[in-house]
């Protein structure tokens, strides 16, 4: 009986194996030959300006204009709003050799796609789009996407540089009769006072000195971005030290230990919001709007833009944040943190290049940066979504479908593809306004200028350095946190041992690779 069954199973298996290879091949490539009169279809995966607002409507005027003028049939797909989701979606498409023609991609994922040969070189495209290249691309941006001498992506300016700052509650300082802290010692005293002296005068012990959450990236490892002003006081801001003489990972600098001791003291004294390790970005932002703490590093628009400041204004009409200089440490150093130029890469898939779509893509991008394209994508239709004020600044005051209304937002979802942080954009995006409750005049642009004038550490290109592998990264992040939670005792001896172990599991190799890269790319100063 077994025999027969086996035969049946064997036959099924055989059939299956014969059928299987059909499914195993990569995606079949669409035929490249298409009559030149037929519109070229361009699949574009874009990073939406405001993901939750939804995509441009199906009858968006842009589609027709692009078809009529450029002979391009544009197909839009909004990438997921979460960066990991983006990476997964793009890499899965890459794995099946099914990438869209043009797509936004984060540098880490982009690098791996280039290694797989899935991304086309765009060196020839720059010359084909002179207008766009003039405003969007420069030597730095090209260097950002260059691997082995070829540029594999179009890097547009991303968020504005140095757009964060150290903020403190001025009203709390005044109430307690304190001066703006200028050194780490003074900062500590202020944090204590904010925690224990009831700065909001509500009679409850419900405030803290410092607020933060863990926000990590490759160039702000350890405790991440929100702690950089404190690291800066000890001269160990950022993951990397890019000074030619002392180049290497900051984590092994003796000053890093001092910074850790300082933060540990904050933790032990209870002057830091105890929720900080559990907060995610939204929770952190909700917390300062509720007046939980009085010192933080925050982004200019997240703090001062109309919608973001409104809840704080409502809750604390007398509240006032001011941007301050980062505190000076024991040796007089200070910095808000490291900064680099933030780029947003748009890559052309090798598949699209092979199908001869590169020219159409260049045509599309060049048009986007023309006056027509720029205003249509950035601000919408004149008179409907925006009007220009006397200074030529787009504004949507009084327009029912203005670019900042929920419906208006949908037609400007592609604006990140055309914006280049010009003054006009900044004035339009960060208009002066009067707050609803307290009647203060606010301007996220003034805040930005103020933040930019503080002391930052230039680290251009630090985000292109090699990333650690997952184990090394975890060891680093976990260790630093464990010294603060008390799971590891923070002593000089333990710290040295921990760094030695870090080196052993791959930290040293990571550092060496990083320095080698930085040297070659000319990032050391």
């Amino acid at each position, binding site marked *: *009986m077994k025999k027969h*069954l086996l035969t*049946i*199973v064997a036959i099924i298996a055989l059939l299956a194996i014969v059928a299987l290879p*059909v*499914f*195993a091949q*990569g*995606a*079949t490539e669409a035929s490249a030959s298409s009559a030149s009169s037929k519109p070229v279809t361009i*699949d574009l995966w874009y990073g939406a*300006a*405001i*993901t*939750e*607002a*939804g*995509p441009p*409507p*199906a009858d968006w005027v842009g589609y027709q204009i692009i078809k009529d003028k450029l002979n391009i049939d544009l*197909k839009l*797909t*909004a990438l*997921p*709003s*979460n*960066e990991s*989701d983006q990476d*997964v*979606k793009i890499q*899965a498409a890459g*794995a*099946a050799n*099914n990438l*869209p023609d043009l797509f936004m991609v984060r540098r880490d994922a982009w690098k791996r796609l280039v290694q797989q040969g899935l991304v086309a070189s765009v060196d020839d495209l720059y010359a084909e789009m002179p207008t766009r290249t003039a405003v969007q691309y420069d030597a730095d941006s090209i260097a950002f996407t260059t691997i082995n001498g070829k540029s594999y992506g179009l890097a547009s300016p991303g968020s504005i540089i140095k757009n964060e700052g150290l903020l403190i509650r001025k009203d709390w300082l005044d109430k307690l009769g304190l001066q703006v802290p200028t050194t780490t010692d003074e900062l500590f005293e202020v944090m204590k006072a904010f925690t224990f002296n009831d700065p909001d005068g509500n009679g409850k012990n419900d405030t803290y000195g410092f607020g933060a959450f863990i926000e990590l990236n490759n160039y702000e490892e350890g405790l991440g971005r929100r702690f950089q002003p404190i690291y800066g006081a000890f001269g160990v801001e950022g993951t990397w030290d890019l000074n030619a003489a002392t180049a290497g990972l900051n984590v092994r600098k003796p000053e890093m230990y001092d910074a850790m001791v300082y933060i540990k003291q904050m933790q032990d004294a209870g002057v830091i919001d105890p929720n900080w390790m559990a907060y995610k*970005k*939204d929770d952190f*932002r*909700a917390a300062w709007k*509720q*007046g939980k703490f009085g010192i933080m590093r925050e*982004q200019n*628009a997240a703090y001062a*833009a*109309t*919608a*973001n400041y*409104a*809840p704080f204004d*409502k*809750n604390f009409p007398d509240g006032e944040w001011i941007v301050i200089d980062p505190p000076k440490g024991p040796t007089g150093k200070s910095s808000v943190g490291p900064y680099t130029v*933030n780029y947003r890469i748009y890559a052309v898939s090798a598949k699209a290049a092979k199908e001869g779509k590169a020219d159409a893509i260049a045509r599309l991008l060049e048009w986007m940066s023309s006056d027509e394209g720029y205003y249509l994508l950035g601000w919408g239709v004149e008179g409907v979504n925006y009007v220009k004020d006397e200074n030529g600044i787009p504004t949507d005051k009084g327009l029912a479908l203005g670019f*900042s209304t*929920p*419906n208006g*937002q*949908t037609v400007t979802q592609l604006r*990140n593809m055309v914006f280049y942080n010009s003054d006009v954009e900044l004035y339009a*995006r*960060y208009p002066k306004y009067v707050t609803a409750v307290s009647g203060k005049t606010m301007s996220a642009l003034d805040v930005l200028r103020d933040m930019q004038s503080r002391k930052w550490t230039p680290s251009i290109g630090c985000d292109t350095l090699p990333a650690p592998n997952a184990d090394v990264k975890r060891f680093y992040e976990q260790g630093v946190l464990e010294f603060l939670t008390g799971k590891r005792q923070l002593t000089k001896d333990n710290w040295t041992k921990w760094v030695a172990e870090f080196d052993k599991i791959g930290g040293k190799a990571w550092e060496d690779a990083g320095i080698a890269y930085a040297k070659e790319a000319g990032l050391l100063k």
Partner: protein
Amino acid sequence: MAKKQHVIKGTAVRLTGADRSFYLLVDIFLWVMLFIIAIPMWSTITLSFRPNDFIGTNIEGMFLMPWNWSTAAYKALLGNNGFIMAFANSLKILVMGVTCSLLLTIPLAYVLSVQTLPGRKWLNILVIVPYIFNVGMIPSYLLVTNLGLIDKLVAVFLPGAVSTYNCIIMRSFFEGIPGELKESARIDGCTEIGVLVRIVLPLSKAIILTVGLFYGVSFWNDFFHAMLYLNRNELQPLPILLRNILMASGMNEYVEVNAFGEAPIAAIKAASVFMSAIPMILAYPFIQKYFTKGTLLGSVKG
């Protein structure tokens, strides 16, 4: 409450001390469960109605009175461009998915439950192996791409249309149907399909609805496959829309415009749960109606 007279089907039954302690403990346990579930749920519900200018502890938030509630979060969600479309897409996926799943799962589970079938053991193993060996995202992605299913709604439910888990569960219920019933039907000249349709299915309403619910909920909540396989905007189902809302703050740039300026983001998140779960929440009491004691004539097979 222990003194209360317990009644079954109109006839008063004298309860012994042991019975009374049993029912008392049952009640206590359920009350405890009720509170354990209700308190965090209540806090989430009140959170979804929390106005933008609320200041106070979380406990105070839970006692926020309904007349102070704000429906801004719900308005923002309902007013979202594409909410209706996403909802419709989700419904399509739900209906097609559940139909397809049940049409595949019921025959398979039935076949696997036929005790006398030669090769039954091997078929069972054939079904269980893919359940245990999860080769991950890319092997399936390659298949879906090569079948040309990218940007088709079927891509979201077809690869997961048969869940081995549900199939095995259904099988063990089918096995519980007394063999004599099926046998006598066969003797009466019923075909196998006849046995399945006339004998097995009518006795299995509860489990079919339950498994249908399992499928329905998994399709309804599935964001991952939709994210991978659907590109076109007009195909996006609800979970994608909600995830874009939940994760919106992941992008640090351009936070100057807030699509939901009127409601706190925590309220939006909480409201999105209830908005999206409503169809599934409504479906459950309907299914419970079919959960009546003694549904099967015989006992579930031991």
